[in-house]
């Protein structure tokens, strides 16, 4: 499954190479022309049969992860987060370090040695380190020089007919949707932007939109689902299995109402269940895209994913398939 390969590829913000290479290979298989820009965004062009409107579909390639920022004499690695990571999810997780995927584990002081008060508070960044089994500093520095990116060592798994689990669904599900979109011909022109560095400040999307210069844009995201115990129903941002989620507002943009309306209409006509993303927190590439040049109307469509920004997120294949149908339905109606 393409999503499995996308999920397992390494792509910490700024070091998206594995994901980019995988996407480029897929684009070549599809016979779609593309370019890689100065920041590393991949822009894939599908000219329209009529070619009046140009629609940009955007998904980011990068994922949250860690970066090696120091090496101890003992060979243990110091690290810092890249993007928003809850340090409570890190303890004892297995990781892969650098392009050669050196295996390691995030270590910390074991329970036997912790003082009583230490057991009651989450470990601080400086109390965590990565152990790659290096015997000393020199060996560690050879395997993991400063700046090396670290990903979670998570294998993609199918949990049931519909539910899959893997890392980096935010936003590899979006990348997989874009690659599906490119398999069809439309009247309108389509530019698929696979962007870099979203997780550290929506950095790739602005320049991508600037050069793509579309008439309108759709941002495809893996977004947070909070249909879990302890959250009241009105606080569920989205729910897994209830179809694609339309953004009503987030911290970085208010979607263009006509586009949201059109998506809602397409869903109705094509009998696709949709939901609204109830949370208005967080930001997406839409924040940069809609403010590019003289302004670009943008809407957001998201696949609900539980536990994003952690080693393993959970999503529904049905939601992904419905997201593809919804966006294709939208594109078929553009000319």
């Amino acid at each position, binding site marked *: 499954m393409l999503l499995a390969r996308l999920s397992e590829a390494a792509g910490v913000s700024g070091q998206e190479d594995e994901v980019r290479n995988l996407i480029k290979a897929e684009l070549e298989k599809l016979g779609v022309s593309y370019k890689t820009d100065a920041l590393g965004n991949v822009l894939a062009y599908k000219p329209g049969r009529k070619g009046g409107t140009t629609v940009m579909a955007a998904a980011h390639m990068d994922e949250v992860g860690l970066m090696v920022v120091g090496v101890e004499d003992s060979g243990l690695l110091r690290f810092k987060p890249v993007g928003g990571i809850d340090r409570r999810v890190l303890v004892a997780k297995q990781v892969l370090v650098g392009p050669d995927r050196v295996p390691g584990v995030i270590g910390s002081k074991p329970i036997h040695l912790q003082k009583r008060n230490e057991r009651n508070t989450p470990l601080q960044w400086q109390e965590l380190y990565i152990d790659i089994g290096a015997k000393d500093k020199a060996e560690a520095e050879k395997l993991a020089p400063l700046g090396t990116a670290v990903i979670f060592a998570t294998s993609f798994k199918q949990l049931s007919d519909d539910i899959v689990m893997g890392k980096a669904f935010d936003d590899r599900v979006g990348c997989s949707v874009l690659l599906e979109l490119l398999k069809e011909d439309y009247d309108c022109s389509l530019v698929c932007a696979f962007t870099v560095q979203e997780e550290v400040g929506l950095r790739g999307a602005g320049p991508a939109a600037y050069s793509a210069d579309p008439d309108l844009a759709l941002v495809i995201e893996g977004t947070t689902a909070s249909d879990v115990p302890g959250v009241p*129903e*009105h*606080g569920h941002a989205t729910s897994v299995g209830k179809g694609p989620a*339309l953004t*009503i*507002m987030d911290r*970085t*943009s*208010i979607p263009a*109402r006509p586009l*949201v309306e059109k998506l809602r209409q397409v869903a109705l006509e094509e009998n696709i269940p949709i939901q*609204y993303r*109830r*949370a*208005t927190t967080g930001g997406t590439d839409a924040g940069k895209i*809609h*403010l*590019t*040049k*003289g*302004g*670009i*109307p943008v809407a957001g469509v998201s696949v609900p994913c539980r536990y994003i920004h952690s080693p393993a997120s959970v999503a529904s294949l049905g939601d992904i398939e419905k997201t593809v149908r919804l966006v294709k339905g939208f594109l078929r109606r553009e000319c």
Partner: protein
Amino acid sequence: MQEMIKSLSELYGPAGREEAVAAYIRDVMSPLADEVYTDTMGSVVAVKRGSANGKKIMLAAHMDEIGVMITDIDEQGFLRFSNIGGISPFTLIGQRAEFADGTIGVFGFEKLDDIKDLKLNKMYIDIGAGSREEAIAKVNIGDSAVIHKECIIQGQRVIGKAMDDRVGCAVLIETARRLNNSPHEVYFVFTTQEEVGLRGARTAAYSIDPDYGIAVDVTLTGDTPEAHRMAVSLGKGAAVKVKDASVIAHPMVKDLLVSTAKAKGIPYQMEVLERGGTDAGSIHLIRSGVPTGAVSVPCRYIHTPGEMVDLGDVTACVDLLAGVLEEPWE
């Protein structure tokens, strides 16, 4: 002018839903400008052409106001919401919500042990619906509401919601009416989505590509009991911005505003705003940079339904802008 401020204040226009304000302004500006259009982000741009040797000057006031957006509707028909811009839950207690179609609701909140625990996610809007179905017939998820409040004119003072920044819109309109003798090509820009991040001004400025910018917005005052110290008072004239959190006024623009105010005897005061930003913050960073300043209307109780401004200050702002636009701007 007073009636126009009242009308503008009472219009519905949360960030992202400025259409009603835009329609009002297009109507008023059409006879006053050579060209009026609405851009991609919904900003209204009215152009008044000057003589051949003038500069391209962009004036900006934002149409949008703070508000709330519906995020969920429960079985009983109660609406949950999130904030659009900087809105405090405490200012919502006892207020009424108004939706685009005129539907009115009441802000309520869950039982709390301590009122200090009040947060927006403990609040809801009650539109009197008996069920989710009944509610959805009027209001859907993603719809926005503003506080419903009448605007009062009491002597020299105006009290109402959304003075931030409808009073700025009124200043721009009045300036356009007064301006007959400017050598410059003046762009009167009524922007969108200022309250959520100075957004409409940015894309408008990109398209217009002006030589200079002036934002017109409200500013805080330091003239109320136990107020945070700030050398701006209601009734003491137009405030010429030196800086806020989004911009340091360009010295040329700031100095020109001050020298014009002095020459024409227009009451003015210097504004140093420690927090908050204006459209000037977006405009001055567009393309390779635009020298930008700002003129502010002093306003008490900003981001509450009781925003208060002084009509003398409003007139001073119009006098100052009309005056400065007749200067050569070299």
